[in-house]
């Protein structure tokens, strides 16, 4: 309605109020307070003292020696690098498996398509912790994978393939958890793709590879980009997978944050890492928003 009665503004405010207040008070404010905490000094057993300090951020890059001098330290930078690396590995493997699967589903008859989507959605709605935990049984010592080796005598008592508690295990866990988030958006854009365009490409003498690279990929790009982002972002900040499958040795940003709050009890440092993680995520979301705007503008020009 172009013109609403006068009390519409009031009514709208009342309707928006609860949601906005809850998210504002229990999400926005906490993140802001955490931002403030990241610039305070740590108390030895959790909590903070109210004096300004940039130590938390310095600590990321430098180690404070006994004589109070700083030495460049790579420990935390390695954790950041590992987070990016594993998130990237998970994204790429999700894409490599997810795209052909999405293509396959998009080419099924309608009834079958819905069934496939249901089958892919179901595990996604089941408990993440439990699904990750299942991988311990598969990858672990004496697990499902090691069992046949042991049975065949290729693996002796006390020997292990060492699949668990490794970057590999974390990557598998991330891929497994987030792959539906890759398949669904790609499927959505492939389903919309008019298949006669592919045939038109073939009709106009393009080879299968050319048809794929010049028609299918560009037209499904929004889905691919969305899928990659939906996998990459939660992987970057993942906690359950590195915690259960990395075994506390292979830390990622998520586990490092949790460790600072629960075990190390250095709240300012934990807050600082959380803020850095948040900054990365926001940066990626902004890049995505820009790309999406660009794509929209291109569509308009067409």
């Amino acid at each position, binding site marked *: *309605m*172009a013109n*609403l009665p006068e009390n519409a503004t009031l*009514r709208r405010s009342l*309707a*928006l109020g609860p*949601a*906005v207040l*809850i*998210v*504002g008070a*229990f*999400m926005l404010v*906490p*993140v802001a*307070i*955490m931002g403030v*905490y990241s610039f305070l000094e740590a108390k030895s057993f959790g909590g903070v003292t109210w004096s300004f300090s940039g130590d938390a951020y310095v600590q990321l890059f430098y180690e404070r020696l006994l004589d109070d001098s700083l030495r460049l330290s790579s420990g935390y930078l390695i954790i950041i690098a590992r987070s990016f690396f594993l998130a990237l590995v998970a994204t790429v493997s999700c894409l*490599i*498996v997810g*795209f*052909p699967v999405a*293509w396959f589903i998009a*080419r099924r008859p309608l009834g079958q398509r819905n069934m496939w989507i*249901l*089958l892919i959605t*179901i*595990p996604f*709605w*089941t*408990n993440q*912790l*439990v*699904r990750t935990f*299942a991988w311990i*049984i*598969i990858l672990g010592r004496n*697990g*499902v994978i090691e069992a046949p080796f042991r049975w065949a005598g290729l693996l002796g008592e006390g020997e292990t393939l060492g699949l668990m508690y490794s970057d590999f295990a974390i990557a598998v866990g991330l891929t*497994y958890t987030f*792959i539906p988030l890759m398949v669904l958006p790609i499927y959505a854009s492939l389903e919309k793709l008019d*298949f006669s365009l*592919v045939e038109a490409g073939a009709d106009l003498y393009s*080879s*299968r*590879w050319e048809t794929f690279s010049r028609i299918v990929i560009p037209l499904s790009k929004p889905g691919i980009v969305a899928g990659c982002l939906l996998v990459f972002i*939660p992987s*970057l*900040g993942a*906690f359950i997978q590195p915690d259960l499958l990395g075994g506390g040795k292979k830390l990622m940003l*998520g586990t490092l*944050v*949790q460790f600072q709050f629960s075990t190390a009890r250095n*709240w300012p440092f*934990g*807050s600082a890492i*959380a803020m850095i*993680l*948040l900054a990365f*995520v926001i940066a990626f979301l902004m890049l995505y928003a820009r790309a999406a705007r660009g794509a929209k503008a291109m569509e308009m020009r067409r």
Partner: protein
Amino acid sequence: MTAQDDIVPAAALPGTKVRRAFGEVPGLKTLAFCFLAFLYLPIGVLVAYSFNEGNIVMVWTGFSTDWYAQALADADIRKAAMNSLIVAVSATAISTTCATLAALALARGGAFRGKVALLGLISLPLMVPEIVTAVATLVFFSSIGLRLGLGNVIIAHTTFCIPFAFMPIRARLEGMDTTLEQASRDLYASDWETFRLVTLPLLMPGVLAGAMLAFVISMDDFIITLMVAGAGDTTLPVYIYSMIRQGITPEVNAVSSILLLFSIAMVTAYWFTTRQKPGRNIH
């Protein structure tokens, strides 16, 4: 995944006949079924081992349902499951109500300044990584000294459930034909009657979808509860986590299986109830 090679087959030589239909790539079907296996194998393994008789998970000694009996009899597990349900039901009720009101205001309230900002704020919990939400909430509760026990957990869950409830409701509203509401007003219905008799009944599938999403998300949450919940306010996922930490036993598998099957049953039931309704109306 060698099957990946198949989707980019070598270019057909000029003049060679294309024998396969376009889009039909050999090996894709195999890949798709392998993918399904990959999705369900861990779940299957977990459930299978929950029936293992012995107390070491990975050494199969025989079939037994004892671990289920033990899990169901365990007072701590029952308390955790109860907590999970209380939190999920409360968070779902509050977040769905707030989300419905907000979606109505945003979709039917006309244009106003700050609309985009408010939309961004409501979807904020979707963008912030869970671990960040978890520690931020912890810091917040401790800094203001809020100690409501399970109440703290409900507040945290309500907050991150709001955007999940909001999305399907808003989508439904945007897809709804506004001329239906105009038709209602044209036929002498007041704004309230129009809302009660036309908007709300038509919005209901969206509200249900939103509530369902919120419920599942709340039941699924582990990290935020882990950081926020006090000792007595453990939910089932957090309890399972502490069990895993102490050592993996078939009992953990049994509890986990119950939780898994519960979610699967809910999602499947929801899927089929929402699928069939439009179908029935067509003929």
